[in-house]
């Protein structure tokens, strides 16, 4: 009758206006839609580009902190440090996460991507934001660090660029939600969404909270930098800003835990020990991880101890419990799978004979171990109300989050890339031997950076500080010699990590551009899971033949002992401090 009516008929069950094009993956049998594939590709490529830029800045920072090298002047140091934070912590990670979201929804569920035009718009906004931020920082008037605490002011372009980037990311998250709805309505899968998709959903829900916090604080700050708002309260800014700043790291945790499960499944055929337990652990993230803004406010005036204790502990450590559960179920699932594959001797044959030459596996396992032992334990200690005073704003803080974001998230994302290149780009890795060594080298570098920065911080070295010798200061002060040793070692391990990073970028970019095309007659076929010899003999979960997990129990016991020991060592340090109340 009318145009409105015509629209109504369309809803009632006619084919959608846009016809989605699919291909079937010859290795996995997954149905992959063309738009989803293209968007995964561009987001992953953008991610790697910003990793290369940001990583280079990071190397310059570490070489300046190394007192014997002291590469950059003060102005450049603060500028480069700001650029390092934005490029790796925001752009590399969030571009990759958008790719992960599209992979976990469209690819794993075999669905078409909802609203691909919107997804492209989101991508364009993110690229524009990222380029604008680099322009604002490199121009020199926005060396305000990643946190940009007022009353220190950056140029309006800086705040605007972050807002643009965040809006683009929010569009990507919305497309992810839409794709889940499409998959459900078009019945492309049976039952519940896979665990990996559930983990990605967790990341996406936290991302909405994160981006909302960012908007609430960055929009007024932009207006302030333009002169429309007279004052931004410094404490209020910090509280809301960290609703974005710390929660965005919880997106990373959810995303890289999902990737741990995904790699375990794709490489070894690992099944979650229990869907219920693993999903409950993700649910704890959704419910409690957002309280982490308090981690940055424990040494501030004006907030009550009650508020600090409840928030910093993620409500009685329920979100920490989530991470500790994944710390058991991820290696547990791998051990169970390996035992099904026939590696049953002793407590650790499953681990010794794991496919260490596969960079996806080695990267994933190193990420798991270092995230737990380095990033996780130090995070809980740093986030304890009273202990925080020992380390607040010292180099311990970057030490901690390089343990989580570099050794944890970045390494997991690198590992995943080695599967994305053959599956999505349909190219073989050009230099497999280089790929084998890359996660190990990068992992050693990242682990070293984290440990030695934490060491220097324990000795009192400030973060974001150009001159640890205080040469030009009116009242001279000298750090303990150990601090300079730590900073030197930090520099050396940064070089190792940089070599690992360059190997990754060069190998991945070369493979995408000129790597052997997969699927031709001359290339060997991949069968997923890559290492699963005797899977048919396996029992399903819950039967009488349920596998025992001695190796995992030993690993987890080791982790817990280290945790408890380190926790109490720090209380000992605290009790020796001057008295204050």
């Amino acid at each position, binding site marked *: 009758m009318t145009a409105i009516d015509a629209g109504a008929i369309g809803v009632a069950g006619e084919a959608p206006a846009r016809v989605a094009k699919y291909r079937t993956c010859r290795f996995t049998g997954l149905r992959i839609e063309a738009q989803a594939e293209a968007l995964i590709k561009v987001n992953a490529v953008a991610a790697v580009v910003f990793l290369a830029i940001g990583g280079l800045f990071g190397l310059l920072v570490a070489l300046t902190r190394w007192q014997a090298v002291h590469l950059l002047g003060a102005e450049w140091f603060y500028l480069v440090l700001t650029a390092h934070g934005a490029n790796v912590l925001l752009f590399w990670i969030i571009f990759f996460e958008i790719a992960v979201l599209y992979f976990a929804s469209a690819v794993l569920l075999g669905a078409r991507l909802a609203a691909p035009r919107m997804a492209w718009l989101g991508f364009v906004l993110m690229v524009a934001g990222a380029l604008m931020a680099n322009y604002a920082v490199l121009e020199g008037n926005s060396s305000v660090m990643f946190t940009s605490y007022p009353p220190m002011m950056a140029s309006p372009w800086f705040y605007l660029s972050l807002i643009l980037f965040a809006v683009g990311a929010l569009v990507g998250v919305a497309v992810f939600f839409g794709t889940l709805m499409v998959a459900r309505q078009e019945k492309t899968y049976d039952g519940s969404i896979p665990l990996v998709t559930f983990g990605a959903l967790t990341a996406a829900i936290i991302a909405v909270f994160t981006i909302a916090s960012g908007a609430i604080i960055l929009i007024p700050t932009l207006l302030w930098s333009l002169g429309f708002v007279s004052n931004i309260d410094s404490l209020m800014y910090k509280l809301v800003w960290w609703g974005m700043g710390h929660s965005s790291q919880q997106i990373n945790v959810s995303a890289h835990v999902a990737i741990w499960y995904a790699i*375990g499944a794709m490489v070894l055929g*690992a099944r979650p020990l229990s869907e219920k337990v693993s999903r409950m652990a993700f649910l704890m993230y959704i419910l409690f991880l957002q309280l982490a803004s308090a981690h940055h406010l424990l040494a501030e005036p004006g907030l009550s101890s009650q508020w600090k204790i409840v928030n910093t502990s993620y409500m009685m450590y329920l979100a920490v419990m989530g991470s500790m559960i994944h710390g058991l179920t991820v290696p547990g699932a791998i051990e169970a799978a390996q035992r099904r594959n026939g590696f049953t001797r002793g407590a650790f044959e499953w681990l010794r004979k794991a496919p260490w030459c596969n960079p996806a596996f080695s990267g994933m396992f190193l990420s798991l171990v270092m995230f737990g032992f380095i990033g996780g334990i130090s995070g809980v200690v740093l986030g304890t109300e009273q202990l925080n005073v020992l380390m607040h704003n010292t180099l311990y803080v970057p030490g901690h989050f390089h343990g989580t974001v570099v050794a944890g998230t970045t390494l997991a994302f690198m590992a995943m890339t080695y599967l994305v290149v053959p599956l999505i780009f349909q190219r073989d890795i050009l230099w497999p031997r280089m790929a084998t060594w890359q996660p190990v080298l990068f992992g050693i570098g990242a682990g070293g950076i984290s440990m030695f920065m934490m060491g220097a911080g324990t000795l009192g070295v400030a973060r974001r500080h150009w001159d640890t010798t205080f040469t030009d200061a009116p009242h001279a002060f000298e750090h303990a010699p150990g601090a300079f040793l730590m900073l030197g070692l930090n520099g050396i391990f940064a070089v190792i990590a940089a070599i690992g990073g360059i190997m990754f970028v060069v190998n991945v970019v070369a493979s995408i551009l000129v790597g052997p095309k997969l699927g031709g007659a001359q290339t060997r076929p991949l069968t997923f899971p890559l290492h699963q010899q005797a899977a048919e003999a396996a029992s399903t979960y819950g039967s009488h033949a349920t596998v025992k997990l001695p190796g995992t129990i030993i690993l987890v016991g080791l982790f817990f002992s280290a945790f408890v020991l380190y926790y109490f060592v720090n209380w000992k340090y605290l009790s020796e401090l001057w008295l204050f109340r």
Partner: protein
Amino acid sequence: MAISPPPKRIWWNEPVHGVEIGWIAVTVLWGLFMFFFMIAWHFIGQQNLSTETYRVQPHAYQARVEAFAERFKVGEENGTPVVRPPAGEDVYILARLWEWWPILELKRGQSYRIHLSSVDWQHGFSLQPTNINISVHPGYEHVITLTPTETGQFGIICNEFCGIGHHRMTGRIRVTE
């Protein structure tokens, strides 16, 4: 597998592995312990950061610090006054681009009410090598009752980035018997 829907549609009724139940119990108990230990330290510990805070106009705070320094001044060092307040007195420290002002002389084992605020940007009070680190905001006056337990010369450095002179921002506290 973790990348495909759970094989059993009613996955939430599947039994849970004993190892998992045991570990969940350990993590819950450890979490509760860590939570209540923070509360307990407020009663058994000697190191708890005060939450006593007042709103203050930066120029008014500066005037009070200057009056305090004038009253108890005993000398000067590199142009910064050295101030020796009597035990139990209110003591003022001013953070500004780029110095901690003035230099304090305190007595070991005596308690002082230390006032901390900034007149311009955010700063980070970092007492070294003791390693006590507290954030300092403009417009907020934070009062901490501090008791030095060792003698000697201590540096205050800034560990909140505050612009190009950040790494030159230092101050001093001397503690005598």
